């Protein structure tokens, strides 16, 4: 939090929930933010910026954007599991095709998927789901993947 360069606060009301997309341009965030009943809180850090989308029901999604304008990571905390097809975009196929050795599941509890260029962790309990996903090759070289939280 030392490297906060600026904070912008925007509020927009919409009707159809939708999320930004991992691996796509930052503009997908604003499209989502317009169509989501959410508040978009933008913070700039050294080497990346974060859009934090929050809704009245307690859903919070953070999207991490590289200087090139690409969403390199997403993280969520939500009472209902967010729609991963919308959140992950084409990277959702990594969930659908990950092999057994790339996938760790725990009975009813959580899943970890690690492929060459995709990391996904989802866990939690009813009313409190959380997780993150990122694309290592899109993470800026001077930024740790551990910021995606």
């Amino acid at each position, binding site marked *: 939090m030392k490297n906060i360069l600026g904070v912008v606060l925007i509020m927009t009301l919409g009707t159809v929930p939708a999320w930004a997309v991992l691996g796509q341009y930052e503009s997908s965030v604003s499209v989502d933010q317009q169509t989501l009943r959410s508040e978009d809180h933008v913070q700039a850090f050294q080497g990346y910026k974060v859009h934090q989308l929050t809704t009245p029901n307690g859903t919070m999604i953070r999207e991490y954007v590289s200087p090139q304008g690409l969403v390199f990571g997403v993280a969520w905390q939500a009472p*209902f599991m967010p*729609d*991963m097809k919308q959140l992950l975009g084409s990277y959702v196929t990594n969930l659908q095709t990950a092999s057994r050795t790339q996938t*760790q599941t725990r009975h009813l*509890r*959580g899943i970890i998927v*690690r492929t060459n260029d995709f990391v996904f962790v989802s*866990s939690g*309990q009813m009313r409190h789901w*959380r997780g993150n996903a990122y694309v290592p090759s899109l993470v800026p070289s001077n930024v740790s993947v551990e910021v995606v939280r």
Partner: protein
Amino acid sequence: MTLKNGSKATLACFLAVITALIFLECCGGSSSTSSIITPATSNTASVTVGFGALGPSGGYVNGIWTTVTVCEPNSTTSCQTIDNVLVDTGSAGLRILNSALTTVPASSLGAVTDSNGDQLQECVQYGDTSYTWGPILLANVELAGETASSVPIQVIGGNSAAAPSQCLSMPVSPNLPNGGNDDTVATLGANGILGVGAFGYPYDCGSYCTDTSNLTQPGFLYYVCPTGQACSATTSSTQATNPVAAFSSSDNNGVLVTLPSIPATGAADATVTGSLIFGIGTQSNNALVSTVTVYALDEYGNIPSFTYSGVSYSSPTNYSVLDTGSEALEFLDASTLSPVGIVECADAPGYYCPSNTIAFTVTATGATSTSGTIAFSIMNADTLFATSNAAFNDLGGDSGTGPANDFFDFGLPFFFGRTVYVGMTPGAFSGETAPPSAASSATYGYYAF
């Protein structure tokens, strides 16, 4: 409902006293007075640790199982006893496989319908992407000597419609059997799940599922499926309910899980037995003793903070829970723990395989600033699995991949050799017995150990 049952109990007690007085008066009193002392409700269910219904091949390790009696609503005679039900402090509500309900079929349980007469259905997708899908029905649930009358339970499977796509907000992992549908013993690994979590509440969704603005939410839980139409989300105040909260006795404010110590190399299937005791501070066997520390939960149902090696991990991002439904001590990750010798097992990624047993200490801090240390060990999981044992107190694995997503899910290994109190939110439901004074400020429930 609870009030009515309470009134009945009071009346019964009153009649017993009157009867006793009459008896004493007419007979001058004698040792026979002992016959009219009403015994306290039997509040202890036996639990067994092991592989469960699937056995060593495909079953749980560190599964904790109990037996539940499911009766037709408000019946004490039309009942079926169902074994291999997972005791789960990580969820709320009883869920039973439709296929396990044979002598008391789902059709004999109480329907829950909307104004159109359509049966209420629930779809829960879990963290591993598997899901339970089936109707919410009313049943009497008996555990030890306790009864929850006409309590909503989920019957898993048995409905003709497929689970709504709205519910399945995560793609089901292709590595799960049966497309992730937990509607068979083979996929659920159990005949049912008994959710007795602290969790802050006795219902599985609470106000999130009574709020119409959530009806379009991916991952929503409650649906109706009118004949000839697609299933659609519906708000519902009738939800799968922790049966303990609905007990007619005063043993309705939480549970104790008690398991014996086991050797470091584990214990064989079904050789470890313990107790699931109902109520906290309500009977002589469930007092909140002064030697335990109360860890109040936060609004997410988590212990707010765990500290390991000088680093604090805080809820909600890096949360901490005590969870009988988890098989291992899932904490941090192999990369973070590599400096102390943790590596993942080559043949079982996700489990820890240190070359030597490693001792750990973490500090837990509750929401009311109480804190204490938890000491445990992690042994090589390959060595443990090679024993063919089913109960382990030192089985560990990754929670995530790094500090950004790591957490502490202390599963059943944590529970051996101790008693853990799982206290529900004070005043969360009508008729709830107040918690012991030491836990009275635990706004969202508590664990104590």
